[in-house]
């Protein structure tokens, strides 16, 4: 055990000692997650409505009604509202003016300008806004009617509140008919990017880290290690453990870091951790293969970056696989990223249980086992080559 941990620990130490690794392994992924979340994050699925125009009773009533229905309401200027709508930062914009406010105060009908964002999800939010506007209009009309019948305004308001509390008003559940939009509902701004970048970077760093395996052979260290009282099996196992430790340290850091810094919800941490463990095992085995087959550490780093990006892209770490055409979606199932992505998606979005993600775990475990056997065999051969 001492031999195994000694080899694994020295590999991890060497990996962490490289300053460029510190940046690309720990800092860069978090920066990317922050950037992606800021630019493209879909929010929490909450309806985002902007209300622009002068402060008025109408604006206050609409804000209260919309917030009561669960929408996130922002008061802003008209130009900002249009920018937010065009860039997807808001779903629906309500543009009020003085005439609207005066009509509302006077109990007259008003025509409100509404602009909807191009995303299909905005349809559902528009319906939510329409319902809120109708509710505000209805209440205003009822108040006007009661006041007209000679009931003081305060009493009329109280009577309406009581009626609202006592009468069960039928509600309309707004369901987005778009499967893709539905899939991402409930995700936090950074949740999707975090899981994608986690898988992309853990695999990428593992592959590029394979260069240290080649260096150990080139330095002659492998020969010296083999002259010590250790078996080739121990050396292979130690190297595998070292690769795994490198991947797991990075993966663990990204999970904890994004949870603390960006509030990423990883769902059931035990299950997410289990997915990470198996994905790290696959990554470690793939790194062993590259480090064993190749003899040039610079070339290996290049292959690691290229291979990591291509597999990551195919596996849904750049564009979510939910947007893939059918053929590409089928191809993506050949990558470990896709299986890990699906498992994490299940845990994060649908409170998936162990049984739910068992198929994904099984495939990842199978991939890890197959690659580990192949990687160990190749590493043994490379040890002989080094002597």
């Amino acid at each position: 055990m001492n031999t195994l941990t000694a080899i694994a620990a020295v590999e991890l130490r060497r990996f962490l000692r490289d300053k460029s690794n510190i940046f690309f392994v720990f800092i860069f992924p978090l920066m990317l997650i922050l950037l992606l979340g800021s630019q493209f994050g879909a929010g929490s699925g909450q309806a985002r409505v902007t209300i622009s125009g002068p402060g008025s009773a109408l604006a206050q009533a609409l804000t209260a009604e919309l917030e009561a229905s669960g929408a996130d309401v922002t008061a802003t200027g008209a130009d900002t509202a249009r920018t937010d709508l065009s860039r997807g930062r808001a779903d629906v914009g309500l543009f009020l003016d003085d005439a609207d406010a005066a009509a509302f105060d006077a109990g007259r009908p008003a025509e409100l300008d509404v602009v909807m964002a191009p995303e299909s999800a905005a349809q559902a939010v528009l319906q939510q806004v329409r319902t809120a506007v109708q509710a505000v209009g209805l209440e205003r009309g009822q108040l006007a009617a009661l006041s007209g019948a000679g009931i003081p305004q305060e009493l009329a308001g109280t009577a309406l509140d009581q009626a609202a509390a006592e009468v069960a008003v039928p509600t309309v559940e707004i369901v987005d008919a778009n499967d893709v939009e539905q899939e991402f509902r409930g995700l936090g701004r950074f949740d999707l990017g975090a899981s994608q970048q986690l898988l992309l970077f853990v695999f990428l760093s593992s592959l590029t880290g394979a260069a240290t395996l080649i260096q150990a052979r080139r330095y002659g260290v492998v020969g010296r290690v083999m002259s010590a009282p250790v078996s080739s099996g121990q050396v292979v196992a130690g190297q595998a453990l070292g690769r795994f430790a490198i991947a797991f340290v990075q993966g663990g850091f990204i999970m904890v870091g994004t949870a603390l810094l960006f509030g990423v919800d990883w769902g059931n941490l035990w299950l997410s951790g289990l997915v990470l463990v198996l994905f790290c095992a696959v990554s470690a085995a793939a790194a062993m293969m590259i480090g064993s087959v190749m003899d040039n550490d610079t070339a290996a780093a290049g292959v690691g970056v290229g291979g990591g990006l291509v597999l990551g892209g195919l596996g849904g770490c750049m564009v979510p696989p939910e947007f893939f055409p059918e053929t590409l979606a089928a191809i993506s199932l050949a990558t470990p990223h896709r299986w890990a992505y699906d498992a994490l998606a299940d845990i994060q979005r649908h409170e998936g249980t162990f049984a739910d993600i068992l198929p994904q775990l099984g495939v990842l475990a199978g991939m890890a086992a197959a690659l580990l056997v192949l990687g160990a065999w190749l590493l043994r051969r490379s040890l002989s080559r080094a002597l």
Partner: protein
Amino acid sequence: MEVAEVTTKDVLDVRGLVRRYGDLTAVDGVSFHIRAGETYGLLGPNGAGKTTIISMVAGLIPANEGSVRVAGLDMTPSETEAKRIIGLVPQELAIYPDLTARENLKFFGRLQGLTGKDLTRRTNEVLELIGLSDRAGDLTKKYSGGMKRRLNIGIGLLHRPALLILDEPTVGVDPQSRNSILESVERLSVEGMAVLYTTHYMEEAERLCDRIAIIDEGRFQAEGTRDQLITLTGGVDRINLRGGGSTSRAAEALSALPAVQHVDSDGAGLMLTVSDGPTALAGIVTGAGDAGMSVTSVEIVRPDLESVFLHLTGKALRD
């Protein structure tokens, strides 16, 4: 320094070792043994098979034929017990450049089974021994070539091996570091460690080794102490006389002297083969002068391992 106690007579016993790579026989029937406190040298040019022999002795590669026994234990690549007895110092700098000297020592110490306080103590002792205590925390990539070589040797000494195997440890080292390394090997030998030392530097083999095997093309050409090997050349010295005047008359006169076996001449003077150079020198210089040669310089070349290698293989050691 303490050396692990070995109860068998020979720390290393190699018999009939053969290693083939396809059609090439890199090592062909090599046998030798080393006792405790003995330094045994493998002297031969690059490509003679020295490193292949060492790789088999250290259990890195298997032999096609023959056996290696270390302190009575069979040595094969899968044999871990025998490997505890040896310390290998490979020709290349087998250290991690991105670790410090202390980290390198601790890593290889753990592989040798050292742990805890024992590991720390031995690491400090070895750092002291190789003179790197004050630079122990520096990354080894910042070290000079000599410092790296010293660390390379120190790693081989960590677990107090009974047999230290040094494969060309002074290649590419400055004279000061080379001398320091040679002194260390002499000290270890005195302390009872058996040393297997390969080199293609004749002076190192002459200085360090109790017995030397001259190896070429995978075979031992001769084996013995330095003096035993020298006798293979016939024990003759060479005297080079430089000067002008009547060299042809001098050559004729000197050929008649009893100690002189052979005289050659070139444009610059005469080259004599004599049975005992220092004793015959005075008579030779006088005889040359009497014959009309004006001698400007005299050089006695005593037989050395280079001469032996030349005598046995017909080529120079550094070919």
